[in-house]
Structure formats: structure tokens, C-alpha cells
């Protein structure tokens, strides 16, 4: 009869502290990475977005700036504790995940859509007589009160959004 059979079957051995820490580390790492990569994967151009996937993407992205920061901090603290006793391949795993978690925390604070389509900061306007636009080019036009403004579509199709004020009215011009 072996010694282990003396334990009542309901009593389970607590996992060692270090495996609980590894488990916590994995959870924080997955959360941090997922908060950035899942919405980035769902909201990508030339792909179909289903209503449920889009809702998930917006929900995660909304929480990503704070969530990725907490996850990254937790990962760094746990990694410090785990480092000493970690085997070599686990050390490389720690480094790799820390890089990904940091990358996610940075990306969650940046708007990479504006890297593809730069916004207009401080829009400039010219009198129509001074515009070099060809007469055949299409524009979007707004008239509020006596103020008339034209937004060339070739420019708006790139910038997509412009915040403007016409005759005191704040408008968002979109194309």
C-alpha cells in the first residue's frame, strides 16, 4: 500500500505557488494581447464585419487603453518574480509575451487608421477664385447662412473626416 492512498480522495493538493503565478501571468498576457489584437483583427478593411463581431470589437477597443496598461503592469511584476526560477525556454517565452503585451498597450493608445488616412489639422481655406481645382472636379458643398464652403472630394476621399465650423455651426464633413 502506498502512502498516497492514505489521503482521502476529496482532499486535493494545492498547486505550487509558482504554477499559480504562471497561470496568472498567462491570463494577464492573453488579456493584454487580446484587447488590442481582437478588435484590430475584426475591424480590418476589405473584410465583412458581422454585428456581433463589431460589437465585441468596439467593447474591447473601448476598454483597451486602461485594460492593456493594467495587464502589462501585472505581467511585468509577475515576470520579475518568475524570472529567477524560470527555465531557459520559459525565459524566452516571458520575453516574447512581454514584448507583445507592451506592443498592445502602446497600440491601444494610437490610432493607426490615421496613419493610413491622415486627418487635417487646422484646415486652410482659399477664396474660390484662388483655387486651382479643375472645374470638372466634384466637391461637397455646404451653405449655412451666407457662408458657402466647398470640400473637394478627391481630398475628402483621403482624409475622410473634417471638423469644421461654418457660420458658427460646428459640422463634421465626412466622405
Amino acid at each position, binding site marked *: 500500500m502506498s502512502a498516497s492512498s492514505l489521503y482521502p480522495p476529496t482532499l486535493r493538493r494545492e498547486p505550487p505557488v509558482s504554477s499559480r503565478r504562471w497561470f496568472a501571468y498567462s491570463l494577464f498576457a492573453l488579456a493584454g494581447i487580446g484587447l488590442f489584437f481582437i478588435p484590430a483583427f475584426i*475591424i*480590418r*478593411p*476589405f*473584410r*465583412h*464585419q458581422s454585428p456581433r463581431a*463589431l*460589437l465585441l*470589437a*468596439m*467593447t474591447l477597443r*473601448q476598454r483597451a487603453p486602461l485594460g492593456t496598461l493594467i495587464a502589462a503592469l501585472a505581467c511585468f511584476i509577475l515576470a520579475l518574480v518568475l524570472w529567477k526560477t524560470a527555465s531557459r525556454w520559459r525565459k524566452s517565452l516571458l520575453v516574447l509575451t512581454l514584448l507583445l503585451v507592451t506592443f498592445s498597450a502602446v497600440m491601444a493608445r494610437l*490610432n493607426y*487608421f*490615421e496613419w493610413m*488616412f*491622415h*486627418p*487635417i489639422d487646422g*484646415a*486652410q*481655406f*482659399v*477664396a*474660390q477664385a484662388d*483655387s486651382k*481645382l*479643375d*472645374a*470638372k*472636379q*466634384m*466637391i*461637397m*458643398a*455646404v*451653405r449655412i447662412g*451666407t*457662408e*458657402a*464652403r*466647398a*470640400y*473637394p*472630394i*478627391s*481630398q*475628402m*476621399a*483621403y*482624409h*475622410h*473626416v*473634417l*471638423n469644421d465650423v461654418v457660420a458658427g*455651426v*460646428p459640422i*463634421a464633413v*465626412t466622405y
Partner: protein
Amino acid sequence: MLHFYLAGINNQNFLMRDRETGTWWQQITGKAIYGPLQGVALELVLSDELTFGEWRTESPSGQVLAPVVKYTKEYDSNWEPDVAKLPVVISFPGTELKSRDVVIGLTIGGAARAYPWDTFAKQSPILDRVNGTPVLLVLGADGKSFRVFVSRIDGRDAEFFLRAPESATDSNQWNLVDASTASQWNFQGCATSGSALGKCLDQTPALKDYWFDWRNYHPETTLYKH
């Protein structure tokens, strides 16, 4: 006052967020779809899609958005045929148009109706009814600018037609006339001669859009056929 920025894409119609609340907005509808302001809709400002030439004659004191020098290389003056070649991610098989067919979309009192651009360009002016409201769709003399008006003069339904020019050299090749008073109307919807002189039609918002996008956000839309 909110400031909007590009924040993503939803089936090729973009999403924007505002800096002040972080709410997500759908471009085509102006509706807040997620976040603190969810359920709110932005008020639509009446706007036109015109050629620069047409707008210039209408707005002598108008101002034009200047190109941002840094990005002029990114501007594509040939965007229309270029975008038409891009793939689509949603389609509506069984409907009578192809995904990238261009339509003019109207929404009046909750009812949506789409007019295929090619049909419109051939038939202009189009007189139609949307949700009981008489509408007049007109193509400008340049063949590219368009406007949509409520086809009523002093509250009474009116019919319009383009009178054929008297000769090929006639300076007035684009001559919109209403059937009841025979007054002439300009492209801004105002009578320039006849007993209606000085009166203007009410313009109604219209969106030039791809069929797939219009149909996706207006699933109940009807389609003008002739």
C-alpha cells in the same frame, strides 16, 4: 461640441469616434452605435455634390478647402473609377443592381428610395413620390451635379420638365420649366422668370452612394424603375 476622428471600418462604411466621449458613430447614418452617447443621432446638414465649376458660379464669395501640401500625393483625382474597382464585402444577390452601381438615395419620413444613377442621368428630371411627398431629381448642365427638391410650389404639387434648347448654339441649353406656370427655374431651385419669379423650391437631402452601402443601411429601401 464634439470633434470626430476616423476610428475604423464597418463593411466599408467608416466608423468615427469623438474625442470628447469616445462614442462610436456610423458615418452614413450619423448615429452613435456604441459608447456613452449610444442612440443619439447627429443632425444632418444639407449638402450638395456638385462640380467645382457649377458651385463656383453659384457661390462667388465661397471658400474652398485647400489641399494639405504634405498629402497631395495621396489625393486621387480619378477616385471614382478607382474606388469602383475595389472589392466589396457584402452583397445583395437577388436585388436588381450590382454592388458598385451608383444610386441616389432619399429618405423622407422614414421611407427610403434609391434611384440608379444611370437611369437618372438618362431621364433627368425625374418626378416621383416618396412617402407621399412629390420629389424632383435634376441633373445639372454639367451632367455630374445633381439636386433633389420637394416638387411643390406654394404647397401645391408641381410638374417640371427640361425644355429642349431652340438650337444647338442656344446659350440656354439647360432650361427647367414648370408645367403650371411655365416659369423658368435655375439649378438652385429658384424661379428666374414667369409668375413664380422669386420663389424657391425646398431642397431635400440626397446621398450619392454605392448600392451595397445604401441597401445595407436601408434594408427597406424601394428602387426606382423605369
